[in-house]
């Protein structure tokens, strides 16, 4: 392993990673995951090789998720059993996901991998993101009409999943308040891991799956996602550390910021309703989706499917794509801060403090 894998750090790069870590941590504390999608490109922009960026990112993810999960466990929001079971299965999904990526790279090169990532990206973010956002909107309308929090209702699919009895596979989960067959949990956990290996945020499948397929409330699903992220992050770190590609300096700088952030995100969840958690998640997913539009012309040009585009233009478009990712994280972070301030003010007024 050459030392060139580990870049020289300066004050600018330390500060940049600290700030991105902070906002990423805040979003993770609130919706269970996030931040990773900005951190890897951010590190690569600073000159960190791709593999070290991924490895160092994942090495900050597991301690961050651990701190967040413990904090939200105190608030009674974590389903440890569901998190651990899904986490272990997600670990397997992540390994297979990595294999798939390597396989595609061997067959079709880097552009093939980029296109595969883009397709998964667009399908998951467009379909799931729009669905989550629509559900948040529906809940807001309900709350506006009723003047109170919309009660948690399991979806029709979740009610069906809970009604299926397969002897020998039934497990009771406190977050769902029902028994669910492990046979339903396995594909969901697996898909969470596969997505984590592909677009770095498994939670965009894990959380909606726990809400809409299993019937868990959004606040519990996002808190439980932190346990899944911890298990996946720990496994991933061990794998990358065995290859000697974890830059512990980078990981700990990001952790320094993200632990400040994750506390805010976790505290924020105690002041909001399920609908707001869904809104933040849906917003981030849909904004992230737009980042792909800026990358695709570059891939198509490289593949010769459209007239060649100048390298400088491709670089400029990529920068716009990265900026859109930062925007997604920023909008998420800002919404959380606003909700927290609003919630705290209302709470203190109600308490007469």
């Amino acid at each position, binding site marked *: *392993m*050459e*030392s060139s894998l*580990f870049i020289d750090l300066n004050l600018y790069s330390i500060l940049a990673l600290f700030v991105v870590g902070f906002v990423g941590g805040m979003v993770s504390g609130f919706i269970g995951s996030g931040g990773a999608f900005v951190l890897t490109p951010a590190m690569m922009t600073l000159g960190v090789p791709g593999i070290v960026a991924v490895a160092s990112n994942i*090495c*900050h993810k*597991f*301690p*961050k998720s*651990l*701190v967040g999960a*413990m*904090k*939200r466990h*105190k*608030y*009674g*929001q974590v389903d440890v059993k569901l998190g651990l079971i899904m986490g272990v299965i997600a670990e397997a999904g992540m390994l297979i996901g990595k294999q798939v990526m390597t396989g595609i790279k061997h067959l079709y090169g880097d552009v093939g991998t980029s296109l595969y990532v883009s397709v998964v990206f667009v399908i998951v973010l467009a379909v799931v993101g729009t669905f989550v956002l629509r559900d948040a909107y529906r809940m807001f309308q309900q709350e506006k009409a009723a003047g109170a*929090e919309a009660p*948690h209702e399991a979806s029709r699919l979740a009610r069906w999943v809970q009604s299926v009895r397969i002897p020998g596979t039934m497990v009771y989960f406190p977050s769902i308040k029902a028994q669910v067959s492990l046979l339903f949990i396995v594909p969901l956990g697996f898909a969470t891991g596969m997505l984590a290996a592909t677009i770095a945020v498994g939670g965009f499948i894990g959380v909606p799956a726990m809400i809409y397929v299993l019937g868990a*409330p959004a*606040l*519990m699903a996002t*808190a439980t996602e932190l346990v899944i992220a911890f298990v996946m992050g*720990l496994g991933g*770190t*061990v794998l990358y*550390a*065995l*290859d*000697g*590609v*974890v*830059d*512990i*300096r980078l*990981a*700990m700088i990001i*952790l*320094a910021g993200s*632990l*400040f952030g*994750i*506390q*805010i995100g*976790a*505290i924020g*969840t*105690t*002041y909001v*309703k*399920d609908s707001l958690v869904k809104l933040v998640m849906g917003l981030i997913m849909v904004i992230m989706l737009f980042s792909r539009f800026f990358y695709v012309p570059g891939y198509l040009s490289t593949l010769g499917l459209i007239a060649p585009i100048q390298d400088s233009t491709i670089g400029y478009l990529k920068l716009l794509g990265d900026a859109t990712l930062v925007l997604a994280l920023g909008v998420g972070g800002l919404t959380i801060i606003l909700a*927290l301030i609003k*919630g*705290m003010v209302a*709470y203190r007024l109600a*308490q007469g403090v």
Partner: protein
Amino acid sequence: MSHPKKPITATLFYGIASLLLYTLLFLNADLFIEWAERTKDHKSLFLIPVVVAFVFSYFHGAFTSYFWEILGLRAAKSGGKH
């Protein structure tokens, strides 16, 4: 949350411990890089980043929690709604 007492001592303790850990890490950054590079031949060295991450998360995690608490950022009573 009705506990007005601010945990100043705990914040200071974990804050100093956290600062100390970061100082140690960066003063010995070359050593950590060397260990990472040697992991290929000495597999057991993979434990170093894992242990470092756990230790940092314990001290820095406690510090950041107390830090926001003394600034008045606290969870709503009894926490989550579910």
